[in-house]
């Protein structure tokens, strides 16, 4: 049903975007900013040290470093080619990104980066790169907010004009959801606690479902409070619940998006054996399998060091999550110290402040400084070569997930899909930071 009570006098944003996107796509390839330095041993060594890459890169550069050669650096060089060259050398998506910015789509997050390597570039080579607009899709409703996906492509050429590598890069430009303080990016809303409730959350962290008990009359009570409503005692202790209960009522949440959960998900009121009720999610069970009266038991969901949520799973669910990939030791475990985040950003010539300036990162809504994408690409390469020593990479395609913040640990896992394909996953405490497909050259 339409509710057009205002006549649209001007072309809509969507129409303007579509028109612009068509024009940019038709313009084809144009020169990118110059590669300021030849492929050189110093930058490669710096990169390998920052990323902890143990490979021998004395003759060729690491393939995942390709974008580094065309990064402009902190002070971009004046473009060659006389007047107007600067305009021509801009990212072809700039106009689209600016138009989106001006219309409230101020958020940006990279979602995909796909590099294919025709060959490894050699130390001493001078590269040239070019870019073209790749496409625009949207508006789409996403977990970040409504947004448009903007894609561009960059190609690198050798001095003889032969292509050495190509990259697809996609960002989501989104209209940030209204934030009312508090919650960390992507994670659940933090509970407020008081002197009367802290014991519950401390208990959850310790793997105990604690129920307040009046130390005088023994009445159990949840949610807890400072005074027993029966005998008015202010003396309290707690019991540790058995963790067994039944679903008293439940809902399946579909809309709108909420922090920390992916719809559809189940919220239930649980009748505990002890006679009190608690609220939590029912996990490990399809929403349409939940029913009133269903027996459940507690399962503690660790969100991070500060928060553990008592959750519920079907009473007969196996103790450990049935998973296609049993918890395997990580191939690489990388503590994301501030030094690592900053050193790798600079070694990849990425001077965007969110990767080195904590205050600026927080001002933009991030929890802390976070890993840049060029580094993520390099770490995926490192994991691939750790899994298949001596392999020659044909391409790396990554899908980006949650940010990898300083202070977290990045755990990389690799799994051989077939002779020519490797799946790499990088996880942090918030979830998957990167899922990647690495293609290997035949015979590797």
């Amino acid at each position, binding site marked *: 049903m339409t509710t057009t009570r205002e006549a649209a006098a001007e072309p809509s944003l969507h129409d303007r975007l579509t028109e612009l996107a068509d024009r940019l796509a038709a313009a084809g390839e144009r020169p990118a900013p110059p590669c300021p330095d030849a492929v050189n041993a110093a930058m490669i060594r710096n990169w390998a040290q920052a990323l902890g890459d143990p490979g021998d890169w004395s003759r060729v550069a690491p393939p995942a470093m390709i974008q580094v050669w065309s990064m402009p650096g902190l002070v971009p060089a004046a473009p060659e080619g006389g007047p107007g060259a600067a305009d021509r050398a801009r990212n072809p998506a700039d106009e689209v990104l600016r138009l989106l910015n001006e219309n409230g789509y101020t958020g940006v997050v990279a979602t995909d980066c796909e590099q294919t390597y025709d060959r490894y570039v050699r130390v001493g080579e001078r590269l040239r790169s070019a870019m073209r607009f790749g496409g625009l899709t949207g508006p789409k409703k996403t977990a970040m907010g409504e947004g448009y996906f903007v894609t561009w492509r960059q190609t690198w050429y050798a001095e003889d004009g032969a292509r050495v590598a190509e990259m697809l890069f996609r960002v989501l430009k989104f209209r940030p959801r209204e934030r*009312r303080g508090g919650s960390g990016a992507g994670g659940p809303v*933090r509970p407020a606690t008081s002197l009367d409730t802290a014991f519950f959350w401390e208990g959850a962290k310790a793997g105990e479902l604690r129920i307040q008990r009046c130390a005088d009359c023994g009445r159990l009570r949840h949610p807890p409070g400072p005074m027993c409503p029966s005998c008015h005692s202010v003396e309290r202790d707690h019991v540790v619940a058995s963790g067994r209960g039944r679903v008293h009522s*439940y809902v399946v949440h579909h809309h*709108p998006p909420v922090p920390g959960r992916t719809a559809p998900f189940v919220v239930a009121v649980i009748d505990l054996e002890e006679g009190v009720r608690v*609220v939590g999610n029912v996990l490990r069970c399809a929403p349409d399998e939940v029913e009133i009266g269903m027996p459940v038991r507690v399962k503690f969901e660790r969100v991070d060091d500060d928060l553990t949520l008592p959750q519920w799973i079907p009473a007969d669910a196996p103790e450990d999550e049935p998973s296609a990939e049993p918890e395997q030791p990580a191939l690489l475990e990388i503590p994301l110290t501030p030094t690592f985040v900053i050193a790798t950003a600079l070694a990849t010539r990425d001077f965007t402040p969110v990767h080195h300036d904590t205050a600026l990162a927080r001002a933009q809504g991030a929890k802390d400084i976070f890993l840049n994408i060029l580094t993520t690409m390099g770490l995926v390469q490192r994991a691939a070569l750790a899994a298949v020593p001596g392999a020659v990479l044909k391409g790396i395609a990554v899908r980006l997930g949650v940010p990898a913040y300083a202070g977290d640990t990045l755990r990389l896992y690799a799994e051989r899909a077939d002779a020519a394909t490797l799946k790499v996953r990088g996880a942090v405490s918030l979830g998957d930071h990167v899922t990647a497909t690495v293609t290997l050259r035949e015979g590797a």
Partner: protein
Amino acid sequence: MNVSGKAAIVGIGATEFSKRSGRSELRLAAEACLAAIRDAGLEPSDVDGLVTYAADTSSEIAVQRELGIPGLRFFSRVDYGGGAACGTVAHAAMAVATGQADAVVCYRAFNERSGHRFGQAGRSVRADSIGLEFSWHLPYGFATPAAWVAMQARRYMHEYGATGEDFGRVAVAMRRHAATNPKAWFHGRPITLEDHQASRWIVEPLRLLDCCQESDGGVALVVTSAERAKDLPHPPAVVTAAAQGTGPDQMMMFGYYTGDLAALPAMRRVGAELWRRSGLGPGDIRTAILYDHFTPFVLIQLEELGFCGRGEAKDYVKDGGIELDGRLPVNPHGGQLGEAYIHGMNGVAEAVRQIRGTSANQLDGVDHVLVTAGTGVPTSGLILSAP
């Protein structure tokens, strides 16, 4: 001392109801108040009391300044979201009945669609007692009013065999009423039960068409003594009874921890008080304005207020039972599902119009109208009567 019969609503005023007012919430409040004062045949200088919701962003003194009211003798705020609606009139009636004020304006105005939307997920909690209540729920993504109501609705279905179609009949009735109310957002746009059943899930068991609108707008009411009301231009809507109420272990929409989820004990208390104070019963009510932010709570209210027995509301609403020609017409203006969501205040205004005989969907023989406020929270209610 009983306020019954001592106060009356003598003026009503409202802005248009929209999705984007394009004006500040304070301006909406001032416009609605001025319209109500003029409707009462008064001037702002006659007003000496202001009452609003604790949730309103426009303070009484801000509204006083905009209206140029020289000074106030009475001001108060009623808490707990939409549960405040009838409570504002209760406070105003107490003030005029006890001589604390002569003319009190009750108001509620917001940009609830274009500004802060209540239907979006809560993203943080305050560190006060209410914030602690939310802290048991928001970390689980249990963060919207639709979800909080759905939890009780599911248990109600389980207890009494009510279905999604029973909820849908409430939506169909409200949209039918709105369809012939030119002030309603959904004027001219009725729905069928099939439309309801085809609408998408918001939080199962609630569908989109079980949820009220989100609206921008303001409504104001002028309350004065029944004595003074006789000299004013419109027939007064006499406050025959006004009540506020909470239930056992009352929380803000989280009444899950003790007792019956398929019930609304705070509304039961308000209903009992209204009947006791008025000496009336359900059979005396010509039309009821029942708070309809979500359809299931209209059913439970019919039961709590004694219009039917426990679990019987699903039969009560069948065959147009709450439509204009039914046994108890509910929300002739279309309610918050059909007219607008002004936190229940637009329902009080409709009750006044029914008593005056000026509603777009006017019923005949309106002596007594029952009005309720937000459900699932501490709430309030009114019985308004023809003089």
